[in-house]
Every structure is written in structure tokens, then in C-alpha cells.
């Protein structure tokens, strides 16, 4: 993709995100439903697909020796940090960008293409992932309504726009999908399917780390859909603010009312 359409798209996304913007004093932990019935059905479909495909694959992955899992997880995380870097810059978080770039440089070289993580030992601490949905949130875009996508899972209007934006600012996507880059790099190995292998491995790695916890959440929720929604929105809110909700930001009005009863 040439630079002009890319820039145009980013501008378009930015304008679109600003259309969603409300005063954005503080990130919200709730969101209206876009189409709840559809989303509930999609979640059921996703969970059935998970039982049939993703969970068994994740269990197989977990059976691999720890060093292999750890190495592949590090490798994926290192590649993923490129998207975080783009978003660090877009958010104006130069300190974060420097940290991400430093980690990538160290882990790609000393850490042998990211298989090992010497950067952490050198004091470059691992930070949470950044994506374009978070960037839109930092810029002031409102959450928008909530819905569930087939396979991709829970999202909001803003984060769905962010997903599209990710594609255009993710260097891994650009390198694997851009024939001009192939020529620049000088080989034909950076083909599109490698991008999907990278994304698939990332998903399997995540699922393998959460086998018991997701099972427990399913077994102990009285409304699994509502639990997933709440967890998703809380997680996004804390990622955008880059701080947990635990302490000062917690809305205590309900508690205060209970205390005064």
C-alpha cells in the first residue's frame, strides 16, 4: 500500500473516532448494547467453536515443553510490540515508545529474534499491549455500543474501528501484505499467510494460558454473556487509562449509600 491512501485512511479513522467523541472525562465501564440478541447468539456460536476447535488446540499446545511455549510466546510478543510502538507514538507516549523500541531492539538481537527476553532483565519492563482502539480512546473517542463478533469476540464500536486501524499501522501486517516491502527486504518469504500464522499462534497462546479460568467463569456465572461484557469493558478502560481501576478511580457512591443505610 502506498503512503497516500494510508494517511487518508488514518485521517478518516481519526475523524470518525472524533464523531463518537463525548466529553470523555473518564473512561466508562459500561456500554449500551448495539444488538444484544445477535451478540448473545454470536457468543454462543463462539463458545461452541471454542469447544470444538480452539480449546483442544490450546490443550495440545500446552502439552508442548515449557521452553518451546515460552519461546514462541516471547517471539509473538516481540512481533506484537511493533503495533504497540506505533500506538505509543500516536498517543504521544514517547516514554512508552522508547521503552517498546528498546525492548524490541534488545530482544530481537540479544534475545535471538525475540525468543528470549533479556530486555526485562536489563530493566526495560514489559508494558501492556497497545492497539488503535486504545489510541482512539486516548484521543477522546467514546466507547460506543457493545457487540460480539464471530470468532473475534467482544468489542465496541470504537474498538471495531480500532481493529481496522490496526491493520494499517501494524508493521507486521504491512511487511507481510505489501509487495513493495517484499522487494525492499529482498526475499519472498514474508507472505500473507505468515501474518495469519502469527495471529493464530497468539490466540492459541492466550487460550492455553486461560483454559481453567474460562472454564471456571463459565461454570460459575449466572449470566456468562454479562460477565464477559463487564470484564471486556473494564479491561479496555484500564488499558486506555494505563492504570487499574482498583483504587482511587473506583466509584464508591453505591458503597457509601450502603454504609449509610
Amino acid at each position, binding site marked *: 500500500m502506498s503512503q497516500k491512501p494510508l494517511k487518508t485512511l488514518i485521517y478518516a479513522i481519526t475523524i470518525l473516532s472524533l464523531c463518537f467523541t463525548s466529553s470523555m472525562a473518564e473512561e466508562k465501564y459500561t456500554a449500551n448494547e448495539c444488538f444484544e440478541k445477535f451478540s448473545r447468539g454470536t457468543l454462543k456460536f463462539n463458545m461452541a467453536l471454542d469447544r470444538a476447535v480452539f480449546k483442544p488446540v490450546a490443550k495440545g499446545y500446552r502439552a508442548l515443553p515449557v521452553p518451546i511455549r515460552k519461546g514462541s510466546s516471547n517471539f509473538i510478543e516481540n512481533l506484537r510490540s511493533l503495533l504497540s510502538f506505533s500506538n505509543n507514538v500516536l498517543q504521544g507516549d514517547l516514554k512508552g515508545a522508547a521503552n517498546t523500541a528498546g525492548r524490541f531492539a534488545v530482544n530481537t538481537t540479544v534475545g535471538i529474534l525475540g525468543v528470549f527476553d533479556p530486555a526485562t532483565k536489563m530493566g526495560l519492563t514489559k508494558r501492556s*499491549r497497545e492497539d488503535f482502539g486504545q489510541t482512539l480512546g486516548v484521543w477522546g473517542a467514546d466507547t460506543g455500543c457493545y457487540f460480539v463478533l464471530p470468532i473475534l469476540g467482544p468489542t465496541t464500536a470504537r474498538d471495531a474501528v480500532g481493529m481496522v486501524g490496526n491493520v494499517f499501522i501494524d508493521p507486521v501486517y504491512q511487511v507481510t501484505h505489501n509487495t513493495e516491502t517484499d522487494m525492499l527486504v529482498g526475499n519472498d518469504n514474508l507472505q500473507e499467510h505468515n501474518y495469519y500464522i502469527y495471529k493464530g499462534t497468539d490466540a492459541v497462546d492466550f487460550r492455553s494460558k486461560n483454559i481453567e*479460568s474460562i472454564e471456571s467463569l463459565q461454570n460459575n456465572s449466572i*449470566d456468562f454473556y454479562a460477565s464477559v461484557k*463487564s470484564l471486556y469493558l473494564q479491561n479496555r478502560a484500564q488499558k486506555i487509562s494505563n492504570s487499574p*481501576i*482498583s*483504587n482511587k478511580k473506583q466509584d464508591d457512591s453505591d*458503597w457509601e449509600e450502603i454504609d449509610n443505610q
Partner: protein
Amino acid sequence: MKRIFSSFLVVFFICFSTNSLVAAYSSDPEKFISEIINEAKLILNSQDTKEMKAEKLSIIALKTVDVKGIGYYTLGKKRKEITPDQKQRYEATFEKYFLKSFTSRLTDYSDPKISVLSAERVNEKYTIVKSMLLKTDKRPEVKIDWRVYTKNPEKPLIRDLIIEGLSLARTQKEEFASILSSNNNDINALLQTLEEFSNR
């Protein structure tokens, strides 16, 4: 949502685990949480049956968790609309649900390794105790913050667990709100759902 789900498991486990033989807990929030964690380990590592473990954990939960307060918090604004009779029924039903919910999660676990790291006094009512569930071959480490209610400094009570930044109490509140909203805001529908869960 990387560690979110992992966190959920563990959270409950610590929260309520404890040795029922121990009667009094420290008034210092950090020590209070450490004591609960240590007692939880004893119970979960014991040779007791799952039912016995659940019973012991329930006793501890009733001593260390503000079950009634959490119940009203998770009910949201609906608590203002219900009659005294419904309130009474809700309290009893919620307690049963709460104990069933956490014991069924916790009794699947044994030998959890949790380090209490520090405590931060937010205000006179709350202290956040920070802890870490150490990583295993199966999952990464998980940050767990305990929201301890300290209005009565002599008797701290747990009001929430925040796992990797996600509040359990808030999640439960959203679940309850969803059930109410899909049943014409009828408290009886919520009570029935809670009872069904408790009798599983």
C-alpha cells in the same frame, strides 16, 4: 484480556480460604490478608473431601468478607425498590449463592502460591492490599488487589478482589443487572436464578 480470566480463578480462592479453627484475624489489612491466604493454603492442601473444604472455606468467608454489603452493592439501584420481605429473602439467597460460587471455584485448586506485596491506604474506609499469584507452567503471574474495608479498624472486611485490574464485585453487579433487565426488572426472577445456581 490476557490474564484476566486466569485471575478470576485464583481470586476467589484466596479470598475466602482460611482455616476455620482460627478465630481472630489481625486488624492490620496486610497481615489480615496474609493470614487468610495462609489458612486457605492449609485447607486446600488438606486431605479433606471437597465438601469439607467447601464448608471450612464458607466459615472463613463469613468471617472475613462483607457478604451482606457485597450483596447490596451487586443488587445496584434495585435495592431501593424492594420490600423489607424481599430484602430479607435476598440477603439469605445471596449469601447461599455467594458461598456456593466461591467454594465451587476454590475447591478445584490446591497449593496456590501467593505473595502479599504491599498495602496502600486509600482513605479511612479502604486499604488496597496488593498481592501476586506466582506463575506456574500453565499460566503467567497474576496481580490480585484486595479491597479491604477498614471503617471499623479492628475488624477489616474484604469487599472486592481486583484481578489484573478487573473488579469481581463490579462484574457480579453487571451480571445481576443483566438478569433483572431481561426479566422486566423483577427481583423474583433474580432470586430464582440465584436459588437455581445454589442448588446445582
